[in-house]
């Protein structure tokens, strides 16, 4: 397959209304090959609606979706062949066995007949379903059902895999396994993943977009996020606190703010780490340094900030 572009999925100005309520507003999204994108947001932010639109289950009120440069709305059959989708509730036919179900899915996605048994076998191995082939889906535990759901989404080797809250309801071990699987998927497919579990995003995604009330309120790479949150500020405490001006005079320090309990927040210049300088100056001036710790803005802080500010307003 000639790869004309590295962008596997792009959505522009995606909007969806339910009556007067705006579920998703003017959303832009782009996904490169081999990338894992985390879509974060509080419940009801429009994540699932977005995913339904990206997979052609729901028609957008306006906007466009292109999968590997094929317009989803104009040529749905071609575009859908390149998507694997795991909705919030895994779409499983409980009366079928795992093998029967996966074979049915393979046929639906036009996996060639002679390759199908091999594809089913490989996918089962990838999802840890090796011994489950002949079990009825109805008899599987929730964790295994979830895996069958994921298996169904990747069986036909789609370019884009869209997973809506893939780790919900799993035990911690299963969560780790599923995360490892998603990470591995990111190598060969592009993955969009929605969740409201923040560490999950940090653990497996390359990029994160936070949605709130149908809008993207934050978009950055995980690395970028890490950079911004590392050493942005320090929290220091002294037995005999100096004036704030004295602290600001230390090289690398941009600003100093008094906090509760005699603690002081020291905002650093970007790319500077004044920790050592502060320790030295404190010792020289006998300030009695008691505490010095980096103040991290965690993804949780970013998330809370972005998704709460509007509620207050």
């Amino acid at each position, binding site marked *: 397959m000639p790869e004309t572009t590295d962008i596997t999925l792009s959505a522009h100005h995606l909007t969806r209304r339910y009556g007067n309520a705006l579920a998703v507003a003017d959303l832009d999204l782009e996904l490169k090959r081999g990338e894992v994108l985390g879509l974060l947001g509080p419940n009801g932010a429009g994540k699932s609606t977005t995913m339904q639109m990206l997979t*052609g*289950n729901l*028609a957008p009120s306006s906007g466009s979706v292109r999968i590997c440069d094929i317009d989803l709305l104009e040529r749905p059959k071609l575009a*859908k062949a390149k998507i694997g989708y795991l909705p919030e509730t895994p779409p499983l*036919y409980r009366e*079928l066995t795992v093998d029967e179900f996966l074979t049915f*899915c393979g*046929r*639906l996605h*036009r996996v060639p007949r002679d390759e199908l048994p091999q594809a089913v076998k490989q996918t089962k191995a990838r999802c840890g379903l090796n011994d489950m082939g002949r079990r009825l889906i109805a008899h599987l535990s929730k964790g295994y059902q979830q895996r069958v759901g994921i298996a169904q989404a990747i069986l036909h080797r789609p370019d884009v895999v869209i997973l809506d809250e893939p780790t919900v309801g799993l035990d911690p071990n299963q969560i780790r396994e599923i995360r490892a699987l998603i990470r591995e998927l990111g190598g060969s497919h592009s993955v969009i993943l929605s969740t409201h579990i923040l560490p999950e995003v940090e653990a497996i995604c390359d990029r994160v977009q936070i949605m709130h009330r149908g809008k993207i309120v934050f978009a950055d790479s995980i690395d970028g996020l890490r950079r911004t949150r590392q050493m942005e500020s320090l929290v220091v405490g002294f037995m005999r606190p100096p004036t704030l001006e004295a602290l600001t005079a230390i090289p690398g320090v941009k600003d100093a703010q008094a906090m509760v309990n005699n603690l002081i927040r020291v905002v650093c210049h970007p790319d500077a780490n004044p920790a050592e300088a502060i320790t030295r100056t404190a010792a020289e001036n006998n300030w009695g340094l008691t505490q010095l710790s980096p103040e991290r803005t965690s993804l949780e802080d970013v998330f809370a900030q972005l998704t709460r500010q509007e509620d207050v307003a």
Partner: protein
Amino acid sequence: MIAVIAWKEFRSLFASPLAWVILAIMQVILAWVFLYQLSGYMDNLPRIQQLANPPGITEIVSSAVFGFAAILLLMAVPLLTMRLFSEERRNQTLTLLLSAPISNLEIVLGKFVGLMLFLALALGLVLLMSASLALGGPIDWGLIGANSLGLLLLLGAFAALGLFISSLTQHAVIAAFASFGALLLLWILNGMTQDPNHPLVYLSLMKHFEGFNRGLIDTADVAYLLLFAATFLILTMRQLDAKRLQG
């Protein structure tokens, strides 16, 4: 692709006891009708033979069995169609089909064909029962053929209507009862008027089956039943699309 979905539907039907129960109960009731008609024919044989133009055994036994089968299936088909879309929507498995690279036409026809395979099986049992009369003497194959064709077309109409109503609601029981009500109403529509040329009579499903039941294949009846099925299949497709547009 239609065959893939049809085959899956057909197998899923047999995974639940419902299909077996329906087939079994139908068979018991029809066998009773069959034997009742047969013994009635045997008992009255001397008198029947004195008539100027005596009815044959096929006419008395098979036509009754087919007529009864039509009414039984009118009750059974809604139970079979109710799950096709309602349950899929309720269990949210419809997403699997909607996300796959297949058109709504293929989804609807797949489900329809799958159900028709099952109904053809039920029809086969009725047919075999009538054919068993051939063990005792010559029978009117033409009459049985007309009845079979009529019943098959009628079942297509039942199934299409049931499928459409199933696509309207998430509740299987509502779908079943609504389909049953609609079919029954269409069945008895001709009873509402005495005038045989009234448009209501023309709409009645029973009226269009009666000809087949007497051994008469009328193209108007064939066309009516085919159009009836096609109309509701198209409406089902539109309904699926409407869900995509409206959510």
